[in-house]
């Protein structure tokens, strides 16, 4: 189906991209994974987490510390980044999930900011705001084309996992909880357990994204944990449309490209970005993904519609 063609296209695209294009594409895929992880919570459970940066950063720092202090090879750090972020999500989720809506959002924000403060102040361990640098993986992992394929592979894994999750009984349970919590619980679905598991999965995938980003950028800084990093996941998701499965990934790509292109051409990029987002919200509420789907649906019927004049 469509998903498979999408990935095949990305695979074929690889050798055609320039060095810079490969870096951008890798970054877009990483941001896409991060946004899709956020959307697992947002779309399936209705939870708006403003603390995803906590897990993104945990994964990034796990990778950075293992590589820089422990001398670990980069690929080996990825499962650990995944696990550490999952653990962080377990703790933070355990404390936050019983809160509702805006309070849940704010508590996740608070925890992320606390982690940021720790990374910032624990100078001896994390390097504070000097960060941890020189994180280019040695050997083939440091090459742009290979790294792109590695990121693409992990992105595909994550996406297929989320796709399967959505169609599983677990996914149905989550949506039931989202739509009508009382009824779902009455049927015997354990709200807390389900939500916590979703939170942990989301956190773990975010951590993986963080580790990949750190190696791509060759450095990790406390700002990986800052709330603006959480906002990126949210913005990318809404831009692409949270109702469409791949919406967050599309939104992430567009968001990244926008930032790069607009920034290259004007110093007033916040104005342009803001105006674009404004137009999106007012006129394209389903996001770009939703727009694309609608157009795809209307297109074959175009001739007939034209004839009937509507």
């Amino acid at each position, binding site marked *: 189906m469509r998903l498979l063609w999408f990935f095949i296209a990305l695979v074929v695209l690889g050798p055609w991209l*320039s060095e810079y294009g490969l870096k951008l594409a890798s970054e877009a895929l990483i941001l896409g994974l991060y946004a899709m992880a956020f959307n697992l919570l947002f779309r399936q459970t209705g939870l708006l987490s403003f603390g995803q940066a906590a897990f993104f950063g945990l994964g990034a720092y796990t990778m950075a510390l293992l590589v820089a202090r422990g001398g670990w090879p980069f690929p080996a750090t990825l499962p650990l980044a995944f696990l550490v972020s999952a653990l962080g999500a377990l703790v933070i989720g355990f404390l936050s999930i019983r809160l509702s809506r805006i309070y849940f959002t704010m508590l996740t924000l608070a925890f992320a900011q606390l982690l940021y403060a720790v990374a*910032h102040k624990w*100078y001896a361990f994390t390097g504070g*705001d*000097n*960060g941890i*640098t020189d994180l280019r993986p040695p050997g083939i992992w440091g090459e742009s084309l290979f790294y792109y394929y590695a990121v693409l592979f992990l992105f595909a894994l994550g996406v297929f996992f989320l796709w399967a999750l959505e169609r599983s009984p677990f996914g149905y349970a989550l949506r039931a909880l989202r739509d009508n919590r009382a009824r779902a619980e009455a049927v015997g679905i354990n709200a807390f357990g389900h939500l916590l598991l979703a939170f942990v999965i989301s956190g773990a995938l975010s951590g993986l994204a963080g580790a990949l*980003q750190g190696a791509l950028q*060759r450095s990790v*800084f406390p700002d990986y944990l800052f709330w603006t990093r959480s906002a990126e996941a949210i913005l990318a998701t809404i831009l692409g449309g949270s109702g469409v499965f791949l919406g967050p990934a599309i939104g992430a790509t567009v968001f990244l490209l926008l930032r790069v292109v607009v920034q290259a051409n004007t110093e007033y990029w916040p104005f342009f970005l803001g105006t674009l987002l404004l137009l999106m919200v007012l006129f394209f509420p389903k996001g770009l993904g939703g727009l694309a789907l609608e157009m795809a649906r209307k297109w074959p019927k175009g001739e007939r519609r034209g004839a009937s004049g509507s």
Partner: protein
Amino acid sequence: MKGWFAPLLLALGLALAQSQQPIKIGALFTLSGNFAGYGKSGSQGAQLAAEEINARGGVLGRPIQLIVVDDQGNPDVGVREARRLILQEKVDFLFGIDSSSVSLAVAPLTDEYKIPLVVTHAATPNLTEQCRPYVFRTSNNARMDSWAAAALAATLPVKRWANIGPDYEFGRVSWQDFITRLKQLRPDVEVVSEQWPRFGSTDYASFITALTRARPEAVFSTLWAGDMVIFARQAKQFGFFNQVRYFMNPVGAALEVLGPLGKEAPEGLLVSARYWFLYPNTERNKAFVEAYRKRFGEYPSYNAEEAYAGLHMLARAIEKARSTQADAVKRAFEADGGLVYEAPEGRKWMRPEDHQVFEGLVWGYTKHTPDYPFAILERMRIVPATDTIYPTRCKR
């Protein structure tokens, strides 16, 4: 006979074209957010230097093309933009950088792509202590600032010191370097209080009262930018500056700070700023200030002069190397005991081991005069470069 004419013409044409091909310099400055003023100064200084260089025929006969980019003070953006400059714009050099974290994030790229980076603002000592072959800093760093401050502080008749600084690496390390060096020079000093407001705080009242309570004789601070403007106003309202004998701030004489404070700036603050436009009273400096004022309608702040001097120094190195190739420029910077350049602020000398430039630093006491709408420095004390040369772990 005409067989060789066309190829010769072609070769000449190519050589001419090559010589006309500009030397591209990608400059990263913080042009948005709270520190946009500093980035603007820096980019303006660089621009003035580029124009001057091109007016006299460029470097090695080639014009300088300056491409200025906003790094937003964000390391991720900095890395992305630096990559774009290197891979898409094909710059020969990276330049500028205000934020220390951005400079540390971009530094590994110099090794990966063999593109030299000339830093003109970012002040963390760590940058040059990493001993990278293609990273150069033509402005002074925070350690030099602290050592100069300590050299001055050692001559002051006070023993009880306190600190109020922004809670991040710059504030922390500056204080550490200062107090460690001061204790070496004056073992009798004692620390009575340390205050660490969050970087970007807008309310210092609680910190000010806590600080005053400890009754320090002198206070060291590296609050800068908006933080310093706000702190100075609030502290003045508390009569804070009347209760301490000396208030030292190595970055307090920035025009970005003294400008907004205007006539409200407290007098008698002992401040420095890496460059003060009224010192030295040389033709070179006066010409620079005049040219900058004419071009941009304002006095040059330190970041403007550092960027200006940095670009000229880079041009000097390229000329000495007779090439823009990274290793040649590196050798040019290091040769003959280290490149020397006479900047408007004075003599800049680059230490070959760590590529860090050393220069004299001017300090002074703030004073209002009718000639300027902001406070200027009087009773200036010059700390010679030799007082700020700290040992480095780099070797050549």
